[in-house]
């Protein structure tokens, strides 16, 4: 596990150059943003008359960890929830603009339930259902039609393994999930999201309610998972963003101030506001 210190520019130089190379290649290869997972264009979001997000334009690349940072109330969680249309659940929430996932605008005419299957979410407070561990993981596949017991057993095992919690739980799958510790519950929730085989995993401050050891476990997990998933994580912990993400976007008062490779954001941010936040002048 590499640690990237916020102001450690020496180690980041090489990495930054390597990524820049990849990026130039990527840019020349695709004139039509084909390999972007999400394209957010001119997104405005209103809660009744209050505007929570202003003219957001953002690209999210697949198989990367994209972090969204910023002070409380800056809109990062709101933006995260637009990526799987969880904001639909909030009365009075209005969205204008486009959020394009794999070429389709998700605010158009689409199957929202399928969207949410494909774009999983892990919340700040671990929220297992009041059921057994097995039933928690099997819940997703079951509601999407999987009835075969053998298949379900397999999915449960694979998901728990992907969340690095199989060994701890394999002997108590039938026990209630509420009996687990906070860190275990959160890894269970990750496994639960993975059980429906999503492409994207959205994580809203997933470790802020956990102890340091569980936090480290989950950060390691995220690094392992990014080969197979696209991960977008909201965090108010800058060091965490610096540790685990490839790209970082800084938000302030509903606007995206700056988005770039993590090394650039934490090493040589272009916007003064970013720099002020990173160095702790406010936050």
């Amino acid at each position, binding site marked *: 596990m590499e640690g990237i210190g916020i102001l450690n520019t020496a180690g980041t130089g090489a990495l930054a150059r390597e990524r820049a190379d990849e990026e130039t290649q990527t840019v020349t290869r695709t004139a039509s943003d084909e390999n972007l997972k999400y394209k957010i264009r001119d997104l405005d979001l209103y809660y009744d008359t209050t505007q929570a997000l202003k003219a957001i334009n953002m690209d999210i690349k697949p198989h990367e960890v994209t972090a969204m940072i910023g002070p409380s109330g800056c809109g990062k969680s709101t933006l995260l929830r637009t990526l799987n249309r969880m904001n639909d659940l909030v009365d009075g929430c209005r969205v204008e603009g486009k959020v394009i996932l794999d070429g389709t605008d998700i605010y158009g005419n689409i199957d929202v339930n399928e969207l949410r299957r494909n774009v999983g979410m892990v919340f700040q407070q671990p929220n297992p259902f009041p059921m057994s561990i097995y039933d928690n993981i099997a819940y997703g596949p079951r509601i999407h039609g999987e009835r075969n017991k053998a298949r379900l057993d397999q999915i449960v095992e694979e998901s728990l393994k992907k969340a690095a919690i199989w060994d701890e739980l394999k002997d108590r799958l039938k026990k*209630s999930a509420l*009996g687990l510790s906070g860190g275990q519950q959160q890894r269970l929730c990750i496994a639960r999201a993975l059980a429906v085989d999503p492409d994207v995993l959205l994580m809203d401050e997933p470790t802020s309610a956990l102890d340091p050891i569980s936090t480290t476990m989950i950060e390691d997990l995220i690094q392992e998972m990014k080969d197979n998933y696209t991960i977008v994580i909201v965090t108010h912990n800058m060091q965490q963003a610096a540790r685990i993400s490839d790209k970082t976007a800084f938000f302030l008062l509903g606007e995206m101030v700056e988005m770039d490779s993590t090394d650039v954001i934490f090493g040589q941010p272009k916007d003064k506001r970013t720099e002020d936040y990173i160095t702790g002048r406010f936050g």
Partner: protein
Amino acid sequence: MNENSSRYKRVRGVDKFMTGVFYGIGGFFILLLIVLAAYIIVKGITSIYPGVFSFTSMGIGNQFFNTIYLVFLSLVISVPLGVAAGSYLAEYARKGRLTEMITMSIEALSSLPSIVVGLFGYLVFILMTGMKWNLLAGALAVTILSLPTITTTTRDALAALPSHYRSGSIGLGATRWQTLWHVLLPACVPRIITGVILVAGRGFGEAAALLYTSGQSTVLNWANWDITSPTCPLNVFRPGETLSLHIWVMRTEGSMNPHSVEIANVSSMVLIIMVLGFSLLARYLSRKLDEKNKGAAK
């Protein structure tokens, strides 16, 4: 320092006194219940005569069966309806005039005097349909009385659930109905069952609503299983006097019956035991189910 300690003594004194008062009130209630129940049970035991529990016109067996059957019928109707209504109110209804009106109607329904409901039942289920007294009419009258309770129990149980159950389920791609059916309602089962058992207890004791609906007599032939016959126990379209009505009848019109006093006493005893028993059962079950849900794995 001096002033403090005398004031302190006074304040402490008041505190102790009030604590005593509250314990006293609690004790009073327990005493009240014990005295009431004991009196009725003892009276009942001393009135037992051979044949009192039989299923003939000599005994109260038929009335006992009618009581249970009638409450069962009313639950079959009121539980699905009540749970559905409660779910609607908790999960689907938007805040607004219509919802407020619905809530007010339910509250009004629940405070209707049972004699009024009984007379309404008489009008609609007996007179308008042209039928004679029947169990089903009684069950429907009891349903009117128990529906609001089940609805509010369900609604409150659902509203008390953490909202993150819903987010977790919707976030996995479930629909509202799937969330309700697979996550929310199962999590409310202990509370709903408690509500149902309490409602059943109330139903056992119902008298005024049944006076002119299910009738004041019952003639059953336990050998007869032709469900269309008026003496078949399972026929819902037959008259069916319940225990509580029986008590009333025995002490008024039925005083010609040589055993009327004893029958009334024994019926009262059985009824009290049933109601108390159900109440305790409700508490026990709800605690057991809560434990199971909260993860006995800890």
